[in-house]
């Protein structure tokens, strides 16, 4: 399998930020993204997903390290006020 080394950027955030984050991500030049629903717990307390205001989303973007850095830099401004968890991992893109 000679895949292409890439970064997988995972962002976990409050669902209310969805459209804002997506706009930022696409503006930075991402080719796509994948979203799934999540719930959880962190420094901002329990996010139970029981009702609209308490759900999280999990956004994944596959891209090169430049793209990921740009996105992360741009999301810095949301960190103070919103529950966010951002991490990358190495993946091999196979198509």
């Amino acid at each position: 399998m000679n895949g292409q080394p890439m970064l997988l950027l995972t962002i976990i955030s409050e669902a209310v930020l969805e459209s804002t984050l997506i706009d930022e991500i696409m503006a930075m030049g991402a080719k796509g993204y994948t979203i799934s629903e999540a719930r959880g717990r962190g420094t901002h307390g329990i996010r139970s997903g029981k009702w609209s205001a308490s759900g999280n989303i999990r956004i994944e973007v596959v891209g090169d390290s430049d793209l990921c850095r740009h996105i992360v830099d741009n999301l810095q401004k949301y960190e103070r006020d919103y529950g966010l968890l951002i991490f990358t991992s190495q993946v091999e893109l196979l198509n």
Partner: protein
Amino acid sequence: MSFEPVVLFFLLGVIAGLLRSDLKIPGSIYEALSIFILLAIGLKGGVELSKYPVGDLLLDGVIIVLVGALIPLVAFPVLRYLGCMNRADSASIAAHYGSVSVVTFSVGIALLGQEALQFEGYMIVFLVLLEIPALVIGVILARHGQGGIRWGRLLHEVFFGKSIYLLVGGLLIGWAAGSEGIKPLDNLFFDLFKGVLALFLLEMGLVASSRIAELRAYGVFLILFAMGMPLFSAALGIITGWSLGLSVGGSFLLATLYASASYIAAPAAMRIAVPEANPALSIGASLGMTFPFNIFLGIPIYLWMAQWIHTYGA
């Protein structure tokens, strides 16, 4: 005191939450129930509205909105100076209390139904009108002297947020279709309304139970505020309603509207427009305390107040 059995479902939800029962209502069902309730209320309001010449309501509407705008303006300094809370939190909580709760209002209507009391059907229009200025005032209070309000984003959130959009949309459809045209939809939107309200209250109870615990962390001031504020607002509503010559039921509903605090439209709008405010505080107070206070104690009290002023007033 008057009592409406539908609130027992709220209690059932709260107890399930406190006892860590594995009962849970999926998020998508919550969404569906709230869409149903918003649309049904809007439709009902629209049908009622189609029976009145809109012009006649204009003056009443302006007065009711202006008086309603007092609520966040009173709440803000109380929170900021008496409660020593920061500007953003004070403004956000004030917006929640200036705004209204459709479910509290629905419990009020249910009680009137049970007591066989009439009310002015167009009250539902005011429900929509009251939501908007409160949110705008909240943002202005938060940003006062700092500039930088993103009005476009905020007004979009206010008008096209799910809650107002469905209320207004339902209102217009109900108004266009009229009581005859809407008849085939009655079976779903009107006959089932109270049952759906019961299920929604069950879910609200589950959600509220987790908020109650959180609220405790913020001390006694916020708890007192969450019970005192609705009493003050309700009094304002009773007096306004009575002065405008509304019926007992109408004055009671206006009091209920004023007294209720939002937990659908306001949290979403404030999270976007005043993100530095802590949502745990505002939702904790409005959903964890004011909502149960209103449906168990407030609503019977407001009805009694309305009956009293219409008997002994003047």
